[in-house]
């Protein structure tokens, strides 16, 4: 079993290539590659997976009929409901909360706390999870959370930065809510006991994010999402809010008209279904990274399979901006075990430079994510200045040793324990050697169209977090996603509580909308065996799968 020879985590030939990075390092130390002009940006964006030819098609049914989306997403919208042809008994209700929350990441958990803060008793809330409470992209957010709370910053600056990053497609009133609530969310996190990085004088440490004009990024080392989520979940558990795990939602229920009235849950281990009747439902199911759009690896957690968008679309909700996908510029490209994993943008905000095979800096390190990612693709596949891994992947170097050259020895261990640990496990020391990166599928920019209070086009249905569409336009900025989850989780919690207090009674439970959906699919001539939501991606070995049979 003679394997390839490795020297400090890299095969010999890559070790040779690293020498070129070392040779130019001190020359690059004080150099900043100029940012691209508007024209330069437009040119390189043609290489972005969103704009490169292919990969998209028209949606042929539903409220967004005629609009374009990624093939992998449209495939799921043009799929038959999971429970079609299944005998579902809606006459017995298993749970009857006032407020049902589907999805326990930052958005859903925050919504539960604020519904409770707004007067809805713990016992009248139900949080359901496909996997565990906390199996979410939230917990993996590394870099930070934006909030314009320094004296030289303003809500307007945060607004303009986000608008420009989103290619001016953001929904103005929703974006206003995001920037206006941001400082309040930081204040709330502190009161819950979150530990956020501080300067010696007690001020927040605030770092650069790609595409921002001011340092506005609040971090908790490089475990920002983990710290925010741990604290919020701990508070949630202390309040004994009902929570069930390993129960994915397989379909929403409606009153047959325009109102969402409950859901069908499915025990992912035993196969038994449960019926929930709720006066208000908050969808906080996250994004779609595990669809591997255009064949890209992803930073997303195992359950990020676009379920929320599919469920809401079945019920008739309108979508928005689902045509664009965010690829994070710096996914790990080596070693193979961690390909696609997120290397936080904060590495670049604190000095790490993208460098090509010849040891040259080729891009301003903090362009908005779509621009930065496109330049990496250009370097690897047009200019052929990328580095090829033993398994045939290409990437560019991210010169992490510069971080300590600029910030002093010991800085990486303190600020990036997660990153350091991830590479240490494969014998790579990011303090001494660069790491190889390539864009990775990161974020669902659009989703179910939302309002400033998380309302959708359907009565009784709210959205919060990545499943929603509108706040980020066509491209999200760093630090705006954790912020989004908490701002709109809170708003959805408050708004549903108000709705309940207005004296709404529970609606009837039907599956009329899925019948209508199936009819639309048939009328559009869609013949397929595809069913959705898919709930989990398929990674089982092909040889094993080929010989599996169902007996029980």
């Amino acid at each position, binding site marked *: *079993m003679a*394997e390839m020879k490795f020297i400090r985590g890299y095969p010999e030939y890559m070790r040779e290539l690293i020498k070129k990075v070392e040779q130019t390092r001190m020359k690059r130390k004080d150099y900043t590659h100029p940012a691209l002009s*508007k024209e330069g940006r437009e040119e390189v964006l043609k290489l972005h*997976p969103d704009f*490169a*030819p292919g990969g998209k098609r028209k949606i042929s049914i539903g409220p967004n009929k005629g609009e374009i989306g990624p093939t992998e997403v449209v495939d799921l919208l043009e799929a038959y409901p999971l429970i079609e042809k299944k005998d579902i008994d809606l006459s017995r209700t298993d749970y009857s909360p006032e407020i049902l929350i589907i999805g326990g990441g930052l958005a859903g958990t925050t919504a539960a706390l604020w519904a409770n803060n707004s007067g809805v008793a713990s016992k009248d809330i139900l949080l359901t999870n496909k*996997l*565990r409470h*906390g199996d979410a992209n939230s*917990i*993996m957010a590394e870099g930070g959370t934006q909030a*314009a*709370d320094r004296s030289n910053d303003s*809500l*307007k600056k945060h*607004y303009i930065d986000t608008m*420009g990053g989103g290619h*001016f497609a953001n929904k103005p*009133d929703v*974006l*206003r809510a995001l920037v206006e609530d941001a*400082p309040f969310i930081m204040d709330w996190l*502190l009161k*819950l*006991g979150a*530990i*956020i990085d501080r300067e010696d004088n*007690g*001020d927040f440490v605030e770092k650069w994010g790609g595409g921002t004009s*001011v*340092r506005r990024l609040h971090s908790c080392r490089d475990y920002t*999402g*983990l710290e925010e989520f741990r*604290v919020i979940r*701990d508070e949630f558990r*202390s309040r004994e809010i009902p929570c069930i795990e390993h129960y994915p939602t397989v379909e929403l229920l409606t009153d047959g008209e325009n109102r969402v009235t409950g859901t069908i849950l499915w025990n992912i*281990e035993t196969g038994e279904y449960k019926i929930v009747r709720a006066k208000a439902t908050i969808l906080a199911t996250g994004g779609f990274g595990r669809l591997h759009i*255009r*064949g*890209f690896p992803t930073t997303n*957690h*195992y359950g990020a399979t676009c379920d929320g968008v599919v469920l809401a679309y079945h019920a008739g909700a309108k979508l928005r901006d689902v045509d664009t996908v965010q690829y994070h510029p710096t996914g790990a490209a080596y070693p193979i*075990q*961690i*390909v*696609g*994993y997120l290397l936080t943008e904060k590495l670049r905000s604190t000095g790490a430079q993208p460098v090509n095979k010849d040891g040259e800096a080729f891009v301003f390190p903090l362009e908005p994510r779509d621009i930065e990612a496109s330049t990496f*693709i250009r370097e690897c596949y*047009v200019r052929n200045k990328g580095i090829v891994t033993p*398994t*045939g992947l*290409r990437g560019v170097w991210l010169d992490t040793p510069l971080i300590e050259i600029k910030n002093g020895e010991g800085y990486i261990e303190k600020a990036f*324990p*997660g990153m350091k*640990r991830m590479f240490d*496990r494969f014998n790579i020391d990011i303090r001494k050697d660069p790491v190889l990166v390539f864009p990775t599928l990161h974020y669902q920019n659009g989703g179910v169209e939302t309002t400033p209070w998380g309302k959708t086009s359907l009565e009784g249905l709210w959205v919060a977090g990545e499943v929603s569409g509108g706040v980020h336009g066509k491209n999200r900025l760093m630090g705006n996603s954790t912020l989004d989850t908490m701002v709109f989780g809170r708003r959805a919690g408050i708004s549903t509580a108000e709705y309940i207090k207005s004296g709404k009674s529970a609606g009837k439970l039907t599956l009329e909308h899925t019948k209508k959906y199936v009819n639309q699919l048939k009328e559009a001539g869609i013949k397929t065996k595809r069913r959705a939501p898919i709930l*989990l991606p*398929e990674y*089982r*070995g092909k040889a094993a799968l080929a010989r599996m049979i169902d007996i029980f």
Partner: protein
Amino acid sequence: MKENKSIMDRIADAAKSVTTGVDAKDIEYWVTIYIMGREYKVPADLTILTAMEYAGYKFVRGVGCRQGFCGACTTIYRKKGDYKLQTGMACQTRVEDGMYLVQIPFVPAEKANYDIEKEKYAVSIFFKHYPEIAKCLSCNTCTKACPQDLEVMDYIQAAIKGDFEKVAEESFDCIQCGLCAIRCPSEIVQYHIAQLGRRMFGRYENPEPEHLKRRVKEIEDGKFNKEMDKIISAAKNELEKLYAERVRESD
């Protein structure tokens, strides 16, 4: 051949083993592992998680973020000829020849309920909510079990002494996988104790930054309302101009 393929196709081809699973014909190096006692031959490059998938397991438990942040894929294993019981996260541990492994699907552990606004910021809080902390034997088994290499026993000892800062500092990178609690002979639930300690430290140790207080007050007073009313109705070309004219704060 390759030249005819689009860039997107070439990228997708290169990433195939990651997005759709490895193909046996591309694999040069193999190892034998024992999943819950049963023998499987799997590619040597895989992690415990992806090796189990290769063998045909579809995870509905014992999996979460797949990147070492969520603590769901707690695994214990022994290596052939080694008496030591090892611990790790399945998504972060490469398979080795002769590994016997099993995943822990769930960690039963009682978490105390509290309202940190009403709690006293003092050492007594740990004994009030987790009295078993006093039973710590200082055996260091928790530390050895930690897949994040945290000094678990040290922070438990710090909690016993009321050193909240040390609890917060030493436990900060905890992913709450529960391995410490499973291994502890005194049945302490270290990771819940750490959570309580961190929240108390975060809430009571550092006063709120002045600049944040000021900004929250300004927003509540409506100081920016006019400016925001105006900007949300601005036309696209106006916004484009404002975006282009931004001045970047100096580093």
